[in-house]
């Protein structure tokens, strides 16, 4: 279980997180929703150890990540897979080489075993035929799927998705969501996803947390969040601008 307790973060005078508390149960899909620029990605970057909080704790199986450095932190990251917003595929490598990269660098698998795992990984995301293409030669949706294949290559226990459907058309958004759901059912990883795809996200989330002005204002099962009486949550779900905000 990932347990976040009272995480705060400021950049200069700008306060981004004001004491975030959240629990992510093992094997679940937890989706963090909230307005753009609301600190969702900053929060996710704390969980994967790319940012350190000003205060608060991030516990993974009772180990506080905020206190870890160097190899101890790397040992935790070995259990992670991360799908970045833009995919973060290495430009100089082909799609297959991108998927093979963590296997080549972090495991003792033979070349043949890696090739087998790469073929399986790309097949799993429906991209058996793009392995020799470079990321710049494939579409945005394909890049996201290659990024998912790369994140899952080492069979991590926890996978973080940072807005995996940003910039995709509605059909591709659904395709990626269902792909994540299907892979989750098959591989049983814990998924933490940052998204603002409403209402599609409610179809795949076990738990939804709404981050608003640096705090989690509501958390619960997808159905409970959809029916929440909290006006902030309802305004966000309906896409209504807040009073006083620019249209």
């Amino acid at each position, binding site marked *: 279980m990932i347990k976040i307790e009272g995480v705060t973060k400021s950049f200069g005078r700008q306060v981004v997180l004001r004491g975030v508390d959240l629990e992510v149960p093992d094997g679940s899909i937890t989706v963090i929703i909230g307005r753009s620029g609301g600190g969702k990605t900053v929060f996710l970057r704390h969980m*994967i*150890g*790319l940012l350190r909080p000003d205060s608060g704790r991030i516990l993974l199986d009772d180990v506080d990540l905020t206190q870890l450095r160097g190899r101890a*932190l*790397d*040992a935790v*990251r*070995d259990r*992670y897979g*991360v799908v*970045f*917003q*833009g995919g*973060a*595929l*290495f*430009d100089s490598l082909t799609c297959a080489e991108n998927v093979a*990269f*963590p296997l080549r*660098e*972090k495991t003792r698998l033979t070349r043949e075993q890696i090739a087998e795992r790469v073929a399986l990984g790309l097949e799993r995301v429906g991209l058996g035929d793009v392995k020799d293409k470079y990321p710049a030669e494939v579409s945005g949706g394909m890049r996201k799927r290659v990024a998912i294949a790369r994140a899952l290559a080492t069979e991590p226990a926890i996978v973080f998705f940072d807005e995996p459907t940003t910039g995709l058309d509605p059909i591709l958004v659904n395709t990626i969501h269902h792909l994540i759901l299907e892979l989750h059912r098959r591989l049983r990883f814990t998924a933490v996803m940052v998204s603002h795809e409403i209402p599609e996200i409610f179809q795949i989330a076990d738990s939804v947390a709404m981050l608003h002005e640096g705090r989690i204002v509501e958390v619960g099962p997808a159905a409970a969040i959809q029916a929440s009486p909290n006006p902030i949550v309802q305004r966000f779900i309906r896409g209504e601008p807040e009073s006083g905000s620019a249209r």
Partner: protein
Amino acid sequence: MAEAPLAAPLVPFAALGQWAIGIVLALGRFGTFLLLAVATIVSPPFKVRAFVDRIDYIGFRSLLIILLTGGFTGMVLGLQVYFTLSRFGSEAFLGPAVALSLIRELGPVLSALMVTGRAGSALTAELGIMRITEQIDALTVMALNPFRYLVAPSILAGLITFPLMTALFDTVGIFGGYLVGVELLGLSPGTYFGEMQTFVDMRDVMTGFWKSVSFGIIVTWVCTYKGFHVGHGAEGVARATTQAVVLSSVLILVWDYFLGTVLP
């Protein structure tokens, strides 16, 4: 408790203090960056493939520009030095004059400036784009040290390729001087090379060598640092690239003067 506001006359001093602290912090980060890179270079696992790739990127792909600038620098030197020496009736010293200028000074400096323009700027832009597209973060969250893949191989490649490119620049430059001095202006080939053998010794070669080694470190250090700590978006990459080229060029000239006063 909130700090009491400063009295108006003290405000400029506070700003000056903040500026000084900012400079010291930046220098600290800059120095720590090199120390981390060196620590990564000397500790396994060694990324041979990345290193070979950097040798190609910094060294091999700069060959044409080195050959061109080396050749023409030697030709210009041959022409100008010949006319200067002819006023004193000392044309015989053209060979050593061209060789010493190239080996001790112009070879290391000009080849370093050329490689900064060609490979250094590209290195900063490449790392900068990797930073803003989260490719460096991707390495970090894979528990793979980005220094090992991106910084250490570049600095090590700089250390090796700069002296080699300087040697090439010097050689081509000397033949450029030969072309003008001997083939064009009629100096005897024996005089050109004979006097060179008399006046150029190993100390001169070592001076050029140490300069090129240090320039190799300076250029790759500055360029990888600027790329690694790039600002936001395309503008951030553009600014970092410009800063990397300007800072590298200035440091090359400053360090060249410093080494010129220290080395024999």
